[in-house]
């Protein structure tokens, strides 16, 4: 099944696209700076298309089959969103055009800010962050700036539960925080005693994820936030799991002060094989002034005869700019289209059915797969992929075997607090029949684990590739096509 790389398909003097000859007199080239050789592949259009079409077919994807990858919210990406994002009036505008020539774009951003604020209960939202982790960095820098604005220079301790996603501690560290890991209690909640013990005058805040990465709504959430607030800290919310809360509960009500959204999870924008995402950040009133610049505001409401007018502003105490221009506008158009089509009831349905689907799968598998924190889950849950009577089987083996049945495996080895984790997020867009097929397969695989473990060890055998040698990859470190010496001329 191995497909040559695009470099291997190259032959001298082929080309996939041509440009017109200059319609202007030629200028003298800057001799001192001219490049000698440019070792790029030379491939005609049809070969380029065939190459990428062929490798694309080696991918599992939401449009190909079920993808219950925990924490990733692999819901269906509606096709209309792809069309609206490609409208020339959106895709062809330059980010530095005078605002009077891009009022549509600003209006759309403003509306998106408003929708996200209303959904989450925050008072303002910045669309600038490029992804979830980028939103975290933004949010933690806002917390930092807040404390510093009050002269609280010592508040640099950030509490991060042990169940948190890796980006949480990493973002805090990048923001100059010291990270203190908080244990979870036996119900999977934040351990309030441990929290209390860390509450001192160096407390900057806490980064919580709720529903947390076990898929559980934290039962101590109100108390935890209260504690942190009482001790002068702020609460950061990782909004990656907002899919469980749309129209159900507003994060700001829990006591969260800053939160990022993952438009590429909750709001159905495609994951693109790794990105791009979009990670808007919402804040409570007191933090508005710290949001990254620029922010879109409505400068005139408009009336029957005159449209509303929008502009960019720079919040007074802004942490600054976290990237160039105004965020991932093309992704924001998709998310806005999605919200418009769903409306308030549709958004609520998303959460209801995401949670219903997760609990349905959990209920059907829990007698066979141990659920370490078993209670009503939210949009996802974490099971263990190990059994006493199948000592050689690990969660990864279960995952690889699922591939043979055409399913994408659950998330493995996250959250770290569960041994041999299988983190299952069904999403709301799947039918009951799909869930049933998936559950039946999970049950069958558990049976195989005990009675026929070799099948699992050898899996997958029905995918285009078998298991890969990851150690070799890290050892050889071949990170680009190895070109022959005479590449440019052969």
């Amino acid at each position, binding site marked *: 099944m191995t497909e040559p790389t695009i470099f291997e398909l190259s032959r001298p003097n082929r080309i996939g696209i041509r440009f017109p000859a200059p319609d202007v007199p030629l200028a003298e080239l800057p001799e001192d700076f001219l490049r000698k050789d440019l070792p790029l592949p030379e491939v005609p259009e049809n070969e380029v298309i065939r190459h990428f079409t062929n490798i694309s077919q080696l991918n599992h994807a939401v449009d190909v089959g079920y993808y219950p990858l925990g924490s990733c919210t692999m819901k269906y990406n509606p096709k209309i969103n792809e069309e609206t994002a490609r409208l020339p009036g959106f895709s062809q505008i330059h980010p530095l055009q005078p605002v009077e020539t891009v009022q549509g774009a600003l209006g759309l951003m403003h509306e998106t800010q408003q929708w996200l604020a209303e959904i989450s209960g925050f008072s303002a939202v910045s669309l600038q962050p490029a992804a979830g982790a980028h939103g975290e960095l933004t949010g933690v820098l806002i917390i930092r700036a807040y404390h510093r604005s009050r002269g609280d220079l010592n508040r640099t301790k950030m509490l991060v539960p042990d169940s948190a996603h890796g980006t949480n501690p990493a973002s805090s560290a990048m923001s100059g925080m010291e990270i203190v890991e908080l244990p979870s209690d036996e119900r999977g909640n934040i351990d309030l005693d441990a929290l209390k013990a860390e509450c001192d005058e160096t407390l900057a805040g806490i980064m919580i994820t709720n529903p947390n990465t076990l898929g559980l709504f934290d039962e101590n959430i109100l108390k935890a936030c209260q504690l942190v607030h009482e001790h002068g800290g702020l609460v950061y919310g990782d909004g990656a799991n907002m899919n469980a809360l749309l129209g159900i509960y507003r994060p700001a*009500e829990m006591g969260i002060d800053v939160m990022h959204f993952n438009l590429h999870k909750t709001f*159905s924008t495609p994951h693109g094989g790794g990105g791009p995402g979009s990670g808007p950040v919402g804040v409570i009133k007191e933090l508005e002034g710290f949001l990254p610049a620029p922010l879109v505001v409505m400068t005139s409401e408009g009336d029957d005869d005159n449209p509303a007018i929008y502009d960019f502003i720079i919040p007074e105490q802004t942490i600054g700019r976290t990237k160039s221009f105004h965020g991932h506008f093309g992704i924001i158009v998709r998310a806005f289209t999605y919200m418009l089509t769903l409306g308030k009831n549709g958004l609520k349905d998303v959460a209801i059915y995401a949670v219903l689907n997760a609990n349905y799968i959990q209920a059907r598998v829990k007698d066979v797969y141990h659920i370490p924190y078993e209670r009503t889950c939210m949009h996802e849950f974490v099971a263990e992929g190990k059994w006493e009577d199948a000592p050689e089987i690990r969660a990864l083996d279960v995952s690889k075997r699922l591939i043979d049945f055409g399913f994408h495996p659950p998330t*493995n080895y996250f959250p770290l607090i569960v041994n041999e984790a299988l983190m299952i997020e069904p999403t709301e867009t799947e039918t009951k029949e799909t869930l049933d097929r998936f559950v039946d397969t999970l049950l069958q695989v558990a049976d195989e684990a005990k009675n026929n473990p070799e099948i699992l060890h050898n899996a997958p055998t029905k995918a285009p590739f078998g298991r890969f040698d990851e150690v070799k990859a890290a050892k050889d470190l071949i990170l*680009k096509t190895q070109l022959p010496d005479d590449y440019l001329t052969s």
Partner: protein
Amino acid sequence: MYTSHTQADREAMLKVIGMDKVEDLFQSLPDEGKFPELALPEGITEMEALDELSYISSVNETPQELISFLGAGAYNHYIPAAVDSILRRSEFYTAYTPYQPEIAQGTLQAMFEYQSLIAALTGMDVANASHYDGATAVAEAVNMAYHNFRGRRKKVILSPSVHPQYRATIHTYMKGMDLEIVGEDLESEADPDQLISLIDEQTALVLVQYPDFFGRIFDLTKLSEAAHAEKALFAVHINPVALGLIKPPSEFDADIVTGEGQALGIPMSFGGPYLGLFATKKQYVRKMAGRLAGETVDALGQRGYVLTLNTREQHIRRENATSNICTNQGLIALASTVYLSLLGKNGLQDLAKLNYHKAHYAAERISTVPGFMVNPVQPFFNEFVIHCPIPAKEVNQILLTHDILGGYDLSQDYPDLSHELLVAVTEMNSKSEIDFMVEVLEEETHD
């Protein structure tokens, strides 16, 4: 809307769960605030949404309506139809990060080829699988340099002719680092060698842009040598299309190369999503942030690719990771991969030359307008600064009345450059567009 549960499904599922109604699923939530009545409209159909979005988009003015000479970090280039035809393949765009390589070789091979292409283009040993955009790639270069010296070197030398928004982003990113930035307060159009005197043994990084924000091309040899003499890292931010014509930064012995990849087949899309290019020397690969695809073999001995060196990343190393980045620009990197594959060696060379010639024609023509001046000495690529007889802002206003976006008014970032306009010319600007702009300038600034 995109859920498909029938009444029967819902009932059967609740029964299995042992609940009566879906509301029971949310028992662990605080009662207060549960099931809020959102002040949002009801959903609309796809047909209505398309109508509404089409209307909103039509309010914006595109290069169909406006002749545009705006660049300054985002460029209006032609995107071959083949690029979007691959991007629309849902095997690519509806896949997640390739955590299960057996069923993700499409994404992984594309990543590997992207890394190969960016390494080839920049002349560097290794490129990562992308950062969010040029600005964050530059900020990650600072981050990498800082950690490379374990925080012991506390100075970054930053040229004032690095894109102002990138510099702003660096300032934001370094808030949590114990770092000092110097160099930005040199005169706006300082040349790179003016940075040399700032380099000392405290210097972690020297960072310049090439071609610089003003479009100029400088020989960076001396600066690089000076940085290396103090064992500092030397980073160069590039415009990838320019590298079709001019020497890659590897020839100046750059340690880190960053770039904004938008010019490589990505729509301008009001500023994003774009593509942060990041490449370095082999010796720094473990210090680099971002995902990496590496070649290996599967159980059958078939060549394939996996995510590798994960131990640098947040999901393994958490607070000690090289960066917090997780989601990157996967699909946009794919776009640039297809784009570079199509153009290849000759295509990128032709494109770069075309941009060069058009920009030089424009510069020469504008220089003929009384009061307008272009620096006649310094080589430039497809962007250049014109000194205007009146404030650049006014020039832009005049041009806009003729449906021309004249360029970027530099006074927004460089108060001393109040009469300076940054003009970009690409293959999308025809000679007649250029001539028309010159005509308007002639007529309207003549008095």
